[in-house]
């Protein structure tokens, strides 16, 4: 099932042993997905979503942060076209992920890759790329373990649990359940702040969002903050941006996924593994990301 990457160095065999670490690392993601999915289910229920609504979001859209954001959009009364524009922009980073991961899966039929695309998330990208780099080649089964077993299934089970069991909680506001949504949003934003530009985009986006919301209402404020914040941040020259983990790299997904499972040491170890294998065979290292 192993799929050689481009100019892939070592034709390392991929067996159960190679995937053991993927599973071990993925357990942290599973726990996060369960907690976050449950939180989404609670937030969705709190916003008036039916079980079918909430599950449709998780199964059909399967977009994590964008799903939670959609809860906020719907609550604020935002028009659907605006919701879709913001959702598309929020998920646009996946373009970078898919372009990065493609070389590792290039030998698979297009149809299979098209199906795999639906399951590509920040966490799936992080897990898969770390796995591919560790074994030195693409691994379709490894991708499905990361994207399907470690994420899609627990996320949806947790969503169902949250939206169903949320009804058993007598007064969610007393328990502070309503804070889950904004806290999750700022937590996810923090995971994306890997340089001065990201920080500026977030701060300016928040400030503009609040200011415009007070004048024109939350739906317009959120859109204004989300679109203008990045424009202001682009004014910061790239040379002083101090970008530590450009989007589309494993490091960025690690930041975003916020699992706390991918230690720098593990990452360095994975790098060393690949380098050592490549040295042995005198092959080229697979690419790490798009030339952004």
């Amino acid at each position, binding site marked *: 099932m192993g799929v050689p990457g481009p100019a892939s160095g070592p034709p390392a065999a991929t067996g159960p042993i190679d995937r053991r670490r993927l599973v071990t690392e993925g357990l942290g993601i599973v726990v996060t997905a369960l907690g976050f999915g449950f939180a989404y289910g609670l937030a969705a229920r709190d916003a008036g979503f039916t079980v*079918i609504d909430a599950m449709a979001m998780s199964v059909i859209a399967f977009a994590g942060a964008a799903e939670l954001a959609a809860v906020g959009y719907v609550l604020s009364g935002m028009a659907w076209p605006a919701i879709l524009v913001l959702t598309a922009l929020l998920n646009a980073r996946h373009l970078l992920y*898919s372009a990065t991961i493609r070389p590792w*899966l290039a030998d698979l039929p297009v149809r299979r890759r098209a199906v795999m695309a639906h399951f590509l998330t920040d966490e799936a990208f992080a897990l898969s790329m770390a796995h591919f780099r560790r074994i030195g080649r693409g691994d379709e089964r490894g991708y499905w373990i990361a994207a399907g077993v470690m994420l899609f299934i627990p996320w949806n089970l947790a969503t169902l649990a949250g939206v169903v069991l949320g009804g058993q909680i007598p007064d969610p506001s007393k328990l*502070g359940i309503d*804070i889950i949504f904004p806290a999750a949003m700022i937590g996810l934003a923090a995971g994306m702040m890997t340089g001065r530009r990201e920080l500026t985009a977030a701060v300016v986006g928040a400030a503009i969002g609040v200011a415009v919301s*007070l004048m024109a209402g*939350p739906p317009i404020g959120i859109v204004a903050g989300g679109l203008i914040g990045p424009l202001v941040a682009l004014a910061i020259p790239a040379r002083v941006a101090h970008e530590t983990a450009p989007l589309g790299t494993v490091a960025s997904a690690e930041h*975003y996924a916020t699992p706390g499972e991918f230690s720098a040491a593990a990452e360095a170890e994975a790098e060393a593994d690949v380098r050592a294998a490549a040295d042995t065979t005198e092959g080229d290292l697979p690419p790490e990301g*798009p030339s952004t």
Partner: protein
Amino acid sequence: MSGNLVLLAILMFAVTYPSRALGLVSPGMDRLPKIAVEYLQLVGPAVLAALAAVTVMVVVGDDGQPTFRVGIEWIAVFVCLAIVGRWRNLLLGLVAAVAIVAIGRAGGLA
């Protein structure tokens, strides 16, 4: 709210799937204009931060008029931000935020 949000879910799929699939199924998508890539990189934190700030700081009253709000929720969100920033653990941050708000409200702070 009704089941018509299923349609919204389908539309959300329609706008999120292309960004996931284009790179995987078609070559050359990694060669977007640099400025476009840089802008896309910044939209995520801006939108999410705007959502969080507006949710915590702006309240729409019964008259439809948005007003500025100060409350225990600010502290909860800030603590979550600090935890994620320090330990990169969203789950822990959420638990802390919920605990702060629950304790604060039980103590009559909000």
